[in-house]
């Protein structure tokens, strides 16, 4: 259901073929939702397992190996998550744009991306020093904790979208 609001590009998005199909085709919307969930399960699951390793679990496993395996899948999952998220957005663009849970979700997503970038630009550069059997530096552990909290927040906001 679209709320009355300023038209412009958000209103235009809702008139696109993709948006109309999302609202009116019987099974497209639930299928897109399911693919979105499968995608973010892989993304957040991978990120969480990597974060737990940084926080000190399973220290016998090399961080570099886990990074290559988990974060490759995390990045690949974006191919599923972003287009499906975009489809759900355009179906009700005006409503989503004004939804506080959606706005907070976007803020948290940006924060999670910045946090991941900071981790790769700083502590991860010297991963060779703490790759296996050693405690990760404080910056890495902080990034891991922040990551876990942010992704939990993103999921919470995503679910709460429907309640605001």
């Amino acid at each position, binding site marked *: *259901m679209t*709320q009355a609001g300023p038209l412009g590009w958000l209103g235009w998005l809702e008139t696109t073929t993709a948006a109309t199909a999302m609202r009116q085709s019987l099974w497209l*919307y639930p299928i897109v939702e399911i693919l979105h969930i499968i995608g973010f399960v892989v993304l957040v699951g991978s990120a969480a397992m990597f974060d737990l390793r940084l926080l000190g679990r399973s220290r016998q496993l090399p961080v570099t190996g886990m990074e290559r395996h988990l974060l490759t899948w995390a990045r690949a999952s974006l191919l599923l998550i972003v287009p499906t998220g975009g489809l759900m957005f355009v179906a009700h663009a005006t*409503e989503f744009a004004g*939804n*506080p849970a959606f*706005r907070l979700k*976007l803020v948290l997503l940006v924060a999670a991306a910045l946090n991941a970038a900071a981790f790769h630009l700083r502590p991860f550069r010297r991963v060779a020093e703490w790759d296996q059997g050693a405690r990760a530096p404080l910056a890495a552990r902080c990034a891991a904790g922040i990551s876990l909290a942010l992704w939990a927040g993103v999921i919470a906001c995503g679910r709460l979208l429907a309640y*605001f």
Partner: protein
Amino acid sequence: MWTIAAAGLLVLAAGVAPVAAHHGWSSYDSTREITLTGTIKEAGYEHPHGHVRLEVPGKVWSVVLAPPTRMEHRGLPASKLRVGAKATVVGYPHRSTEDEMRAERITIDGATVELR
């Protein structure tokens, strides 16, 4: 750099504007069951919830229904949710939006479909 990024995020978050709530059953007052009979002025057989604008004497209600997949499964295809049809809905008014209600069931052409 990080303080700037954090400040930017706070500004973004502060720009969040409140908007009328929707969707969850908790947004509707289940202690006040209402029954409306009127004419469908507008019908949306759409995701995530179908809806009709129902004209009753003196008022037009915005009635939130169920997901199209559920309505189809329970015998209320898009063709039955047509403009001009008489419909009776039983449901609950929205807690803050005066002309919105969420229907527990809808009766069209003598056939009642449960929506929850």
